[in-house]
């Protein structure tokens, strides 16, 4: 071995920068959760129950809310917040009911958040209200992590979405108080079993109130209205 082996010893150069590793423990959902708590406190002060309706595009959220408003508007003060990515089609359909309605456009967002709902709460007179139906964006994947300040969540699925909606999107159902299985008048044509969908929901959480409905025949809508008033 030659003496040149000594040259193999690596030279350590001083780094021009120091490296630090610092614990942050910062919750990324906390900002939204804080605003959701503020929304909830404001609603509680006015004795208002807000319900967050979630479900896929075409599950029938808008029609279901319209039917609920028809049934309840003469009994209690009711308002609707309508989340829609770009259009006001949904809001227009409910507007015919002559109840306060706020369109919340998220532009490119795929979920409502507590900040948007807080702004909507600032746009209406809260004093005479008892119930606010918040129609979330048509999306079964996103809104679960973003509480709005509502007292309960209703997840709306329909038999036309096929037999696997609960198995495909289980996380969405874990936070639900009520699950509506809509369009049951089409269950036979679709070959979808309402009992199996119900069993899937209860596999995830046994105390979820499952209500089969049809906005066409009116089946189940009174039960849903009563369940919302009891929250």
């Amino acid at each position: 071995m030659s003496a040149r082996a000594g040259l193999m010893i690596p030279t350590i150069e001083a780094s021009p920068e120091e490296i630090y590793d610092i614990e942050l423990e910062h919750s990324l959902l906390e900002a939204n959760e804080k605003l959701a708590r503020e929304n909830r406190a404001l609603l509680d002060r006015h004795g208002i129950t807000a319900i967050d309706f979630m479900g896929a595009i075409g599950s029938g959220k808008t029609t279901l809310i319209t039917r609920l408003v028809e049934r309840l508007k003469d009994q209690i003060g009711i308002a609707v917040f309508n989340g829609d990515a770009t259009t006001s089609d949904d809001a227009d359909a409910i507007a015919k009911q002559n109840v306060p309605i706020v369109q919340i456009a998220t532009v490119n967002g795929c979920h409502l958040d507590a900040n948007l709902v807080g702004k909507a709460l600032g746009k209406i007179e809260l004093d005479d209200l008892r119930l606010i139906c918040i129609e979330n964006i048509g999306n079964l994947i996103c809104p679960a992590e973003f509480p709005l300040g509502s007292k309960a969540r209703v997840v709306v699925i329909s038999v036309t979405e096929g037999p696997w909606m609960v198995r495909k999107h289980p996380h969405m159902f874990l936070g639900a108080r009520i699950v509506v299985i809509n369009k049951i008048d089409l269950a036979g044509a679709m070959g979808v079993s309402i009992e199996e969908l119900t069993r899937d929901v209860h596999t995830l959480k046994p105390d979820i109130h499952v209500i089969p409905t049809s906005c066409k025949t009116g089946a189940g809508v009174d039960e849903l209205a009563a369940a919302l008033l009891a929250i």
Partner: protein
Amino acid sequence: MHEFSIAAAIVESVQGFAEKQRASRIIEVRLTIGEFTHIEQEQLRFCFEAITKDTVLEGAALEIESSDAAVRCPHCGYAGPPKYWDGALAATSVPTLQCPACGKAAEPAEGHECAIKTVKFAREDDSPVKETAA
């Protein structure tokens, strides 16, 4: 894609942190994501990479640790791991809120977090770089 909102929240939070710490670049952000959340790691990485361009976070590694779910049962007092559902059409088995002991509805106890645990960053040293002997 709520992963985009999460990625945006990471950038906002770490940018503020970097400014306070006089960080010149962020090397690594380590997250903890609970099993009960529905946050898709690959989508989050994709969003993170896209949204960190031209920021102090550009090129930073995103390390994701998942934290286990746990439930407690108000009916029988059970506390521990949840019952998993293998019948779900998901990539992994899904934690449920059915009590593994009595079968009634349990409550989530752990596994809901989505948080930045640590941030590794570099700070330019004020002292001049020493020349190493040739």
